[in-house]
């Protein structure tokens, strides 16, 4: 880990540089916050209108009973995968390069899941009764249907959210204590409370390490399970193009793929604006680029499998569905997905592209667009050309559902922007671990 001058930062540098990110924000920051808050307000208003007027306000219809909300839901769940992958799996594999980016990635995970979690509510026709999906003893003697993948979703997502939040908070503890020590006044009190009495004693460190390892081990299977369960929303259904055993690994891979892209979208500006070049180096970007490339290649393989099985199955409905997606009303979305997810990431074969920030940034944005459209293509055109020709139709988004979807991005960014100003977005502790210990003067 070196800065632009090639000098390794010291422990003191780390403390200083990270805590510097928490300094009172600039007017530019407030400007961005205001923009994001405005968009969020529009989204909230749109949702309010939808609750008042009915789901008709969103552009759904027969046969597209699901559309942009579930697309965006799956998209955000996917985004929520990279964080845990980086913080838990890479931790267990002792991939040391993760240290400077995992905090940002983990925060992204928590916020992405919080965003995704809104969509089942937004999507429900009677969202005020959505709590009926929870199993709790009630006077109505009602119990959720455990055969429904939607109930599995409830468990998968709430579990994932719980574990990610706890894991996130545990990782934050020593850093909060470091901020506490560096801050004064009421801030010190708040950070003091949040640090839960962290003193940095050996005993605390020992417990901390053990707990962190355990949580990492606990979170690891969730990375694979959550998106598998989400994919079963589709795979368990009968719809042509959905009913496939391919879906779980296909979705998990896509999730990691898009998650990494989102991490890059977030940390590249962070590094730039806070001058964190010493911590987030080209090496990190290179490693992320490689992961994106690998997951993209795997995804392309799944795409081929999907097309192949549709053709090879000889199933009329599957074939018709695929053919329709690729050639008719939604063909643009279909080919956009292939372009963004299979073609564009191929530039990452070149090392220069992997370390060239603007290229990497553009690739990441395109990957995010491509992955959103991948889910869109599964849901909207998939439903639009299902078994029954009488009801086939084209879905048109309305202002309401568009605003809600855009609002969800604002919701995510408002959380993230808030976070980076109150919590260290680079892990002080773990970065220090990767640096050489400060050599103490020898006692004679």
């Amino acid at each position, binding site marked *: 880990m070196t800065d632009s001058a090639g000098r390794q930062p010291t422990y003191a540098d780390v403390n200083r540089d990270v805590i510097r990110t928490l300094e009172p924000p600039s007017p530019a920051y407030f400007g961005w916050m205001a923009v994001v808050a405005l968009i969020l307000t529009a989204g909230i208003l749109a949702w309010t209108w939808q609750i008042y007027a*009915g789901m*008709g306000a969103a552009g759904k219809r027969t*046969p597209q009973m699901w559309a942009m909300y579930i697309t965006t839901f799956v998209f955000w769940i996917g985004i929520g995968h990279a964080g845990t992958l980086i913080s838990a799996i890479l931790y267990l594999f002792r991939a040391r390069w993760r240290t400077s980016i995992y905090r940002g990635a983990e925060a992204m995970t928590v916020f992405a899941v919080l965003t995704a979690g809104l969509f089942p509510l937004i999507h429900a*026709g009677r969202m005020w009764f959505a709590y*009926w*999906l929870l199993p709790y003893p009630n006077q109505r003697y009602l119990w959720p*249907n455990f055969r429904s993948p939607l109930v599995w979703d409830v468990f998968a997502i709430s579990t994932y959210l719980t574990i990610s939040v706890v894991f996130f908070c545990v990782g934050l503890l020593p850093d909060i204590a470091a901020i506490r020590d560096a801050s004064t006044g009421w801030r010190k009190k708040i950070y003091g409370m949040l640090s839960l009495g962290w003193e940095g004693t050996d005993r605390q460190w020992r417990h901390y390490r053990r707990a962190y390892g355990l949580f990492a081990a606990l979170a690891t299977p969730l990375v694979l399970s959550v998106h598998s369960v989400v994919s079963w929303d589709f795979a368990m259904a*009968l719809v042509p193009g959905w009913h496939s055993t391919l879906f779980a690994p296909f979705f998990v891979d896509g999730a990691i793929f898009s998650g990494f892209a989102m991490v890059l979208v977030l940390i590249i500006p962070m590094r730039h604006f806070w001058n964190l070049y010493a911590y987030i180096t080209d090496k990190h970007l290179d490693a992320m680029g490689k992961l994106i490339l690998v997951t993209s290649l795997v995804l392309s393989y799944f795409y081929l499998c999907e097309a192949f099985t549709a053709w090879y199955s000889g199933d009329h409905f599957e074939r018709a569905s695929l053919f329709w997606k690729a050639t008719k009303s939604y063909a643009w979305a279909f080919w956009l997905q292939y372009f963004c997810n299979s073609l564009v990431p191929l530039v990452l074969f070149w090392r220069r592209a992997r370390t060239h920030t603007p290229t990497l940034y553009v690739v990441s944005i395109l990957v995010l667009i491509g992955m959103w459209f991948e889910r869109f293509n599964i849901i909207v055109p998939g439903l639009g050309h299902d*078994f029954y020709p009488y009801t086939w139709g084209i879905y048109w988004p309305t202002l309401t559902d568009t605003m809600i979807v855009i609002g969800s991005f604002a919701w995510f960014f408002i959380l993230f922007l808030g976070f980076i100003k109150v919590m260290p977005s680079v892990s002080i502790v773990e970065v220090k671990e990767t640096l050489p210990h400060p050599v103490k003067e020898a006692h004679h």
Partner: protein
Amino acid sequence: MKRRDFLKIVGSSAGAVAAAGCGQAPERILPYVIPPDNLIPGVASWYSSVCRECPAGCGVIARNREGRVVKLEGNPDHPVNQGALCIRGQAALQGLYNPDRLRGPMRQDASGALKPVKWEEAEKLLVERLTGLVKQGKGKRIVVMSQLESGNLGRLIESWAQALGARRPIFYEPFNYEAIHHASRLVFGRDAIPHYALEEANVILSFGADFLESWLSPVEHARAFTRMHAFKHGKAGTFIHVEPRLSLTAANADEWVRNAPGTEELLALAILKVILNEGLQAPGVDVALLRNVAMPVDLEAAAGQSGVSVETIKHIARTFAKAKPGIAVGGGVAVTSTVAVETQRAIHLLNYAAGNVGRTVRFGPDSAFVKATPHAIVGLLTQLMAQGEIDVLLLIHANPLFALPPKWGFAEALKKVPLLVSFSNQPDETTEQAHLILPDLHSLESWGDFSPREGVVGLMQPTMAPVFDSRAVGDVLLSVGRQVLGSPAGKGPFRWETFAEYLKEQWRGIAREYASSMLFDQFWEEALRRGGVWKDVATAPVQARSAPVFPIQGKPASVEGDPQGLTLLVYPSQRFYDGRGANKPWLQEAPDTMTQVTWDSWIEVPAEVAKKLGIRQGDLVKVTSPHGAIELPAYVSESLHPGAVAIPIGQGHTAYGRYAKDRGANPLTLLPGGAGLSFLSVKVTLTKTGGRRPLAIAQATHDQDDREIAQHVGLGAARELELRGAVPEKASHPSMYPDLKYPEYRWGMAVDLDACTGCQACVIACKAENNVPVVGKEQVAYGRDMHWLRLERWQEGKPEHPENLFLPMFCQHCEIAPCEPVCPVFAAYHTEEGLNAQIYNRCVGTRYCNNNCPYKVRRFNWWDYSSPASSSYAFPDPLPLQLNPDVTVRQLGVMEKCTMCVQRIVAGKDAARDEKRPVRDGEVQTACQQTCPTQAIAFGNLKDPSSRVAKLSRSPRGYHVLGELGTRPAVTYLKKVTREHGKA
């Protein structure tokens, strides 16, 4: 409390409910005319009456719950419709409860605006004017124009006019089939429309007669058609239809022959010539007469002009003549061209030559349509009005301003009439011009009778208290007549206090005719219960009059206008009839079966023409005839004759309430004026306006994409299947779960596609029974219609001459239902009677069930259709009075779908349990099944092997839609049987 008092209270409280909708106190009358033995809230009473949506005179029974009618069903005893109703009959309730129905009497004030007045005042006004005229001996300046009233109201109108010295009343029907009785007079010397017994024919040869849609008596004809045509015991009749347009009736034909417009007479004569040439005529016919008529026709020329090959003409002639008996009928555009009478004459002669007269074509039980006034007389009246000869015009449910072409000048003539009185209870075009409106009761609120044909008299009784402050037209006529003549009550020509009294007295005569031995009171009660009286009428022998009574034309109908133009076909609408159905939202939202268009009208443009002019579906097209121009969105048709365009009648109202007003355009404005009314008389030119108005089409495509949703089997193969009697191997799908057990019942359905004619009656019956909301054009266009039952039309083969398959699709109540496991809250679940139930209250609205439903039959409440505060509210007052109290009105955000009328199942089981027995087969009928004119739908317990539904489900023709998915539906479809012989 006495029983009668109790009934009075219930009756008047029902009236109070109705009054809440309008804020005016209705006249208090007792709706329970036959006092029921006991009235239990929650238990329905049924009252029989007659459907007056068209002059076919079908018997109805009205289901009255707590003082309001909630559903109409066909009267099973009635000889005309035998329990069935058509789409318009089912929707009659929305005339009764129409939100735009006139609330009470009105008069035009000095500024020309209509203002409510009191009944007494309104009557006084009329009495004063009439008295003045009668006193001066100017009675001839009074004329009554009524819809066809073939019963005692008609008689009262006639005697009223006579007593006042008024002109003979006009019974005005836009579709009066006068060509048929004129032709009968010319050919057989009998001025009558015979009874066409389609069921007894082996071959039907129709020249444009849309007998499954509007012609004469569509319900009766549909039932009869199925009897002769549907595959049964290896036999099936043949139906050949000649028409330039692929109408719904044409689509049901085994052989649709597309002729050039207006060449029906020519074809009929050519067929007659072939019959004579080949000696196929029946023994004993006057060959000389027939030769005289047919021989001048040149077969080659006829083929050339009609576009029907000589081969086809010969083949039709042979098939028809060898049928023994067959039947030839003519209708639709063919009876309203300039050669309409000649065409009907040729058709009569065809029937005569083939020996059908007296067998399938029966004079004797003649149709009441003959009483409708010919258009020539209506034209005469128009002239009189224009000359200022008429001072008072009384309109009783006639709307000539809509139904007559403007070129008739009726509107201008009307301006010369100082007092126009309308008895209509709907704000239609003519009523809007009225100086005085005295709204009549709806037919379901009235006493009356109607005789659709000799030997059948349907009796009408009030099925509920009046919804609004209306009075029976008969009562008003009696009261006004008394006041004008100054005759006291109880004496003179208008001695009856009410029309009901008059009716009852007149029925003493009917009692003598129909049941001479019975006491009158007993007879009367029996007639009320049964819905009328009927008897067999002997077929009257007729002889063809010998030549040369009439000259032979043998040329196509003449059309005026640009010779390069396209012949305009203006045809009766199955949904709106002559336009009177257009104010009923159910009918607006029910798709036209062939095009699946809702809420709008359209011009059918042949694909060739559309291509040439660059017209796409939904493009606005200006249609110009020598007499007018209208703009309509185009519907591009592959099958329409390339020399024609077609527009249905019924839309284009400029008044007539919120649902009808300013919707589409009225094609009658393109027609000429003159003495007769010809729907086929002009050529039009089309110009693209550049504008667009996309049509709200419910069906995305008519191509099944090889999915075998609607299946068919050849007649030979069907016979073979029947002989083998083999139950087809149902594809077995292995399941990890044990089979479901149904302890007592498993409800199921069977739909015979060979019987289904695509009439849509089931769609509206379902809507009425199950409180299904109407959603409007935009929502239908966007795939959000709420129909629990939809009628699909699938086509195969050449697009210009397709094989049409009709399939009613509704929840299939799958045994392994894809919707059930995916619902997270058990809102969709399986009952132990095999129903795929939906609990509205439990539904959260994830809509997963509909994603997973391969049939896409679930319906989601996208908007708030049920709360009055919502802008999407589907039931403006007083429509809520129609809502079935046994069925929940669903709220925003829940999924709904066909329940197999679970409320009827529950009622049936309750009744059975009271008698400690299981439900009998046929005891529970679903609404769709009940109204089906062709009995294509069977419902019952699949566990009972002797039930009708179980037997049909085992039919060798049976299959499950998308059965390969392993859903095991409870609905079995029976393949349509197609005829092998080549298409014309």
